[in-house]
């Protein structure tokens, strides 16, 4: 497919992903829109352009593995899995409800989910373990993990960063959704992260910075990650918390406040523009 056509397709998927996220959260009445909306283009590109996976065979042994370390962005991942065909889109409307398939944070038993998430700072280690197995057994799959930026304050992230470079995991690509906002406010006020890229470079990672809404930059980033040898790659995606819904953008409040159900049609109308 021509790149322009491919990007148009991904853009449409991203728009639909935002719609599904907002609908699911409004129906649930709780959950995390800000950090779900910020990383839409990143995960849409990963699932619909980059990863080798088979929704009809979620346990395919040689599938690429994705770990959502920022587990509160579950609505984003669920919306993507539903569009991929891992489960029916109607499941999104029972998100967070008693007895439902879709738990508030990712859990085992949901088709397409590789591991539970929700406690910050852990996912990169899981991806390291999985990438080690691929190396050890000469298997072709890659491991991907999406972390939050606030999550970089967790010490285990850096334990895993050291291990990934020690073991030369060039089959591992980590991503940071660098939206600059955490639950209590701005990351640079709560616990400054900068110079973030330099920190990861100092840990011997191949670091690529992209505009989190520029599909060609994101695609190029994943290409570079795949062609890099002997080092793991980190893609820092510069993003906007709450992206796409004007009153949610840059607003820490919408880290964990869903759209009101009775205002949903107004909110969704922004996506049509």
């Amino acid at each position, binding site marked *: 497919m021509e790149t322009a056509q491919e990007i148009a397709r991904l853009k449409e998927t991203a728009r639909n992903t935002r719609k599904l996220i907002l609908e699911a959260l409004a129906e649930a009445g709780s959950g995390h829109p800000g950090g779900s909306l910020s990383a839409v283009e990143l995960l849409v590109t990963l699932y619909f352009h980059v990863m080798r996976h088979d929704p009809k065979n979620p346990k395919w042994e040689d599938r690429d593995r994705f770990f959502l370390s920022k587990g509160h962005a579950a609505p984003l991942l669920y919306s993507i899995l539903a569009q991929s065909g891992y489960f029916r889109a109607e499941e999104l409307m029972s998100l967070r409800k008693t007895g439902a398939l879709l738990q508030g944070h990712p859990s085992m038993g949901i088709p397409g989910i590789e591991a539970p998430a929700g406690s910050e700072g*852990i996912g990169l280690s899981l991806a390291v373990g999985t990438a080690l197995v691929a190396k050890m057994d000469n298997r072709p799959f890659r491991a991907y993990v999406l972390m939050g930026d606030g999550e970089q304050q967790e010490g285990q992230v850096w334990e*895993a960063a050291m291990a990934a470079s020690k073991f030369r995991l060039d089959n591992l690509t980590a991503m940071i959704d660098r939206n600059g906002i955490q639950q209590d406010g701005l990351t640079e006020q709560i616990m400054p992260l900068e110079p973030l890229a330099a920190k990861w470079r100092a840990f011997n990672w191949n670091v690529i910075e992209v505009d989190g809404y520029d599909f060609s930059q994101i695609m190029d980033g994943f290409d570079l990650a795949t062609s890099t040898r002997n080092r793991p790659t980190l893609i820092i995606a510069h993003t906007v918390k709450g992206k796409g819904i004007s009153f949610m953008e840059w607003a820490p409040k919408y880290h964990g406040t869903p759209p009101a159900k009775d205002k949903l049609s107004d909110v969704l109308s922004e996506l049509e523009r």
Partner: protein
Amino acid sequence: MLSKTAAMRDAYGDALLELGAASRDVVVVGADTTGSLKSGVFATKFPERFFNVGIAENNLVSIAAGMALAGKVAFAGTYAIFVPGKSVDQIRNNIAYPNLNVKLVCSHGGISVGPDGASHQQVEDIAIMRSMPKMKVIVPADAVSTKSAVKAIAAIPGPFYVRLTRASTPVVYDAGFQYEFGKANLLKEGSDVGIIACGLMVPEALKAAESLKARGVSAAVLDLHTIKPIDVDAVVKVAKQCGRIVTAEEHNILGGMGSAVAEVLGEQRPTLMKRVGVKDTFGESGEAGELMRKYGLTAADIEQAASNLLTTSS
């Protein structure tokens, strides 16, 4: 019996070598204590399946989980104080919740760690680990049963915690002993008092039973090596036969094996009990034997508890 001593850690290393030879899916992850834990011997035979993550115990647990997710049987461990003691979130959310095939085998449980002092003496691990859904908890009595148990759990899916002792301990079992998951071993029949023990308190329980016998008291001894899932039938049976129960563990008396026994008996057969264990306090530096005496964890303490029980009217 009991005349020889052997190290559970050596037995663990031996078991890993046999498991590694038997299956390519067995991997070992360590955290800078692999020489001490004897898991390092695995690297001499299977270097491509051995990973040292440095002094990073949270990462140790989660990397092992990642390997289990990709199909491996992951043995991971270091000193107990750094696994249940330091990585409870990773154990709970990365291993127990997804029910992964990770075997956490940790040495240096309890106060018999000795001179390193309270910071290294984990007396809360059984309580922590048995409170987690899906987690199985084993505290072997000696080196022979350690080796047999480690080999057995490799073939049982799901997460396990195995607690070993730093010091060499008396050998309780004959060389041919076969560990049976979840099935307590009645080492000695008795009718007056039942002693239920785990770990290095099992040989102490056997010695206590001998002393009691010399005084005309018939004591049963049950090795409750698997604390979770607990062998309800064996616990109830020994309570029925003896009418009084002493538990003995090198762990805080709150939440440990004695508590697990009390939960079973309280619901199924209320029985007078005494718990020998660390009395809700931290340890200190000292030689292992001295600490065991100071903190009331010897055959004499078990015997005393049994004597007290026998003079208590039910």
